[in-house]
C-alpha cells in the first residue's frame, strides 16, 4: 500500500447532466415527491466518482428514508412553527400590515429578525443533522463513516459564535469558523477511528487579507472621492471593492479549508494535506456562469424561432383569409402548437440550467477540492474496523422541510 493517498475524482459532465435532467423531470411531474430519490441518486453518482487509492466512496442513503424523515420533521415543525408564527403575529409584530411611521417600520424590521431568529436554531439543528446523516451514509472500503449526536450543542455554540462575530464586526470570524468546524470534526468517525481537529483559530487570520484589502479599498476610495468631490472615484472604488470582497470571501473559505484540513488527524496517526486554490475555483465559477448565460441565450433564441415559425404560419393563415386563397386555408392550430412547444422548451431550459449549474460549477469545484486532498500515513487505515450502523430515524428531514442544503 502507498504511504500517501491522493484524492481522485472521476465524474464526467455528460452522465451527471443527464442524471440530473432525468431526476429533475421526475421531481417536476410528481409534484416534488421524487426529490428525495433525485437527491439520493445524484449523491450516489458524486460519491462513487470520488476515490482514494483506487477505492471508490459509496453513498448508502435511500430516497425512502429521506421521505420518512421528512414526514417526521413535518410533524415537529408543524407544531413549532404554527405556534411561534401566530404568537409573533399576535404581539403586533406582524409582517403583513403597512407601517404608518418610522417607529412602526423599525418595529417591523425587528419583527422580521425575530421571526428569523425563531427559525434560526432549527436551521442550525437541521444543518448538523443533515451533515451527520450524510456522514453516516458514506462508506469507503466498506467501512462506514459516522458522527456523534450533538445537534443542540452545535446550535447554541453556533448562535454564540455568530453573535460574537456580529458584535465584533467580523473580527472574530476565524474563531467562529475554527470552533464550529472543530466541534463537528471532533465528533466524526471513520469506522472505529476518531477524527480530531488540532491547530489554533488564530492561524486562519491570514485568510482574511483580501477581505481586509477590499474593505480598506472601499473605505479609502469613498473618503478620497468625497473629499475630492469625485463621484467616479466613489462608485469606481465601491465597484472594484465589492468584486474584491466576493473573491476575498472565497479566498477565506478555501484558505480556512486548507489550513483546517492540514490540522486534522484520524486515529492519532493518519494525517491530511490540502492545496485547493482560489484562482481555480473563481475560474470554475466564472466559466460556469458563462456557460449558463450562453445556454440561456441559445434557449431563448430557439424559443423565439419556434414562436416566430408558428406565428408566421398563423400570420400566413390570417393573410390568406383576407387574400385570394379563401377562408378554407385558415389553420389556428399552428399558433397553439407553437405555444405548447415553447412551454415544453421553457421547462426543459429551466431543468437544463439547473443541470448546468451542477455539472459546470458544483461538480468541478468538488473535483478540484477532492484532487487537492492528500492522506498521509495511509497504511494505518488498514487497522481501522467497522462501526455499528446509525439508523438515523429522521434522516435529513428537517433540512428537507426547511429547504436548506441545496442539491447535494
Amino acid at each position, binding site marked *: 500500500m502507498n504511504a500517501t493517498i491522493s484524492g481522485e475524482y472521476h465524474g*464526467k459532465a455528460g452522465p451527471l447532466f443527464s442524471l440530473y435532467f432525468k431526476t429533475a423531470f421526475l421531481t417536476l411531474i410528481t409534484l*416534488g415527491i421524487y426529490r428525495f430519490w433525485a437527491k439520493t441518486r445524484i449523491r450516489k453518482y458524486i460519491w462513487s466518482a470520488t476515490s482514494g487509492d483506487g477505492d471508490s466512496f459509496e453513498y448508502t442513503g435511500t430516497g425512502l428514508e429521506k421521505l420518512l424523515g421528512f414526514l417526521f420533521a413535518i410533524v415537529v415543525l408543524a407544531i413549532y412553527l404554527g405556534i411561534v408564527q401566530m404568537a409573533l403575529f399576535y404581539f403586533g409584530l406582524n409582517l403583513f400590515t403597512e407601517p404608518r411611521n418610522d417607529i412602526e417600520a423599525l418595529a417591523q424590521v425587528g419583527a422580521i429578525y425575530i421571526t428569523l431568529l425563531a427559525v434560526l436554531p432549527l436551521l442550525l439543528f437541521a444543518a448538523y443533522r443533515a451533515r451527520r446523516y450524510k456522514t453516516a451514509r458514506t462508506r469507503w472500503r466498506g467501512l462506514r463513516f459516522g458522527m456523534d449526536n450533538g445537534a443542540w450543542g452545535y446550535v447554541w455554540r453556533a448562535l454564540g459564535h455568530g453573535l460574537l462575530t456580529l458584535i465584533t464586526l467580523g473580527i472574530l470570524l476565524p474563531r467562529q469558523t475554527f470552533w464550529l468546524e472543530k466541534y463537528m470534526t471532533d465528533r466524526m468517525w471513520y469506522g472505529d477511528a476518531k477524527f480530531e481537529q488540532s491547530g489554533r483559530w488564530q492561524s486562519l487570520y491570514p485568510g482574511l487579507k483580501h477581505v481586509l484589502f477590499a474593505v480598506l479599498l472601499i473605505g479609502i476610495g469613498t473618503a478620497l472621492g468625497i473629499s475630492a468631490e469625485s463621484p467616479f472615484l466613489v462608485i469606481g472604488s465601491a465597484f472594484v471593492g465589492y468584486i474584491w470582497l466576493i473573491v476575498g470571501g472565497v479566498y477565506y473559505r478555501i484558505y480556512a479549508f486548507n489550513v483546517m484540513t492540514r490540522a486534522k488527524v484520524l486515529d492519532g496517526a493518519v494525517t491530511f494535506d490540502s492545496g485547493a486554490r482560489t484562482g481555480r475555483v473563481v475560474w470554475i465559477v466564472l466559466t460556469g456562469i458563462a456557460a449558463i448565460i450562453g445556454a440561456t441565450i441559445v434557449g431563448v433564441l430557439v424559443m423565439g424561432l419556434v414562436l416566430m415559425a408558428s406565428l408566421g404560419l398563423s400570420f400566413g393563415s390570417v393573410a390568406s383569409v383576407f387574400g385570394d386563397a379563401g377562408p378554407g386555408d385558415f389553420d389556428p392550430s399552428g399558433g397553439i402548437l407553437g405555444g405548447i412547444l415553447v412551454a415544453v422548451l421553457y421547462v426543459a431550459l429551466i431543468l437544463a440550467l439547473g443541470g448546468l449549474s451542477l455539472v459546470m460549477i458544483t461538480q468541478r469545484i468538488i473535483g478540484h477540492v477532492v484532487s487537492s486532498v492528500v492522506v498521509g500515513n495511509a497504511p494505518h487505515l488498514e487497522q481501522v474496523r467497522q462501526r455499528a450502523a446509525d439508523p438515523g430515524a429522521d434522516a435529513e428531514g428537517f433540512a428537507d422541510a426547511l429547504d436548506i442544503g441545496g442539491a447535494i
Partner: protein
Amino acid sequence: MEQTARYFDGETGLRLDVDLALDPAAQVLTLRHPDLPQGVQHWPMDALRALADQARSDQLVLTLRADHSYDSGLIETARLTVFDAQMIRDITRLCPDLRRRDVAKGTAQKVLTRLGLAVGALAVMIFVILPAMAGTMALIIPIEREVAWGKSMVRQMERFMGGDEAGTLICSSPAGDAALEKLTDRLTGTTGVAYDLNISVMNHEMVNAFAAPGGQIVLVRGLIEAAVTPEAVGAVLAHEIAHVENRDSTRGALRAAGSAGLLGLVLGDFAGGTVAVAMAEWMLNSSYTREAEAEADLYALTMLDNAGVTTRGFADFFDSLSDIESIMPDLPTYMSSHPETAARADAARDFAATQGATEPLLNDVEFKALKAICD
C-alpha cells in the same frame, strides 16, 4: 472466466485482491484468497446486487442481498469491485437480479403510518389548534391595535384598487356624508355596537363591501350604484357591522398567519410552490368564512328588523347580485366566500314576510345624495 477483484469484508479496512471465478452451472461467483476464512467464499448469483448510479463504467461494485439490515438498504456490508470488462459483461448478463432494490417487509405500512401521522398533525394544527388559538387571541387583542391594523388593511385595499396615495379613493360630499351617517345611526340606534364604526366609501366600480378589524367598514361605489333602494345599502352595511362585531376578519387574519408557514413548509420545495400555497390558503379562508357569513346574515336581518327597516331590500340586492353572477363563469360553491346568493335572497324574503310595519331608511333626496357621494 478467472480474474482478480478487490474485496473488502465490511469488518476491516483490509483490501484483498481475490481471484474471481464465475460458475454458471453452479450459479455461484467464487472468491479465493489465502486470507479469506477457509480461503474461499461462494456468492450465489441470484443474491448478487450491484450499486446503482455509479459514476465509473470501468468498474462494477458488487455486494450481496441481506435478509435483514440496520442500514438503509437491504444489502451486506462486504464489497467486491470488479475491473475486468469481460467479467463485468458476464456478471451483468448472467445475474438477472443485479439491479434489484430489495425493500424490507413492512416498509409500505411504515410509510403509510408516517404519512398518516404527518397529515394528521397538519390537519389538527390547521383545523383545530390554530382556529382555537386565533379565536382566543381575537378576543383578547387590545382594541387600539385592532383599529390600527384595520386602518392599514383599508389602506392596502385602497392601493390594490389603484389609489396611489392614502385617501385619494375615499369619497366624500356634505349631503352624501350626512345620508350615510343617518343610515348608520338608524341601524345602530336600536342595536348597540361595541366598536367606533368608521365607514367610508371607496371610488371603484367593483360591487363589493368589506369589514376590516377594529370597526373599519368600506362600501365600494359599484355596490351603492347597483343598489335600487336605501334598504339594500343598509342591509349590506348591517352585514358588515356583524363581521366587525363578531371579529371575523381579526380571527381570519390571525389564523392565516399561522397556517401560511405550515403550508409553505409542505409544498414549498418545487416549481410553482408559491401558487399552490396561495391557492390552498385561499380555499382554507373561504371554507371557514362561509359559516361566519351565514351568521352575519342572520345578525343583519335582526338588526334591520330592530331598526324597523324592511329586509326586502336585502332580498332585492341578492337578486341583482345573482344576475351579475350568472354572467360570470360559474365558480364552484366552495371557492366563493359567500353562501349562494339565491338562498340568501330567499331567506331575506321569508324574513320580510314576518315583519310588522316598517319605515324607509332614507328619503329619495338623501338616497340620491348617497349615490352621488363620489361625483
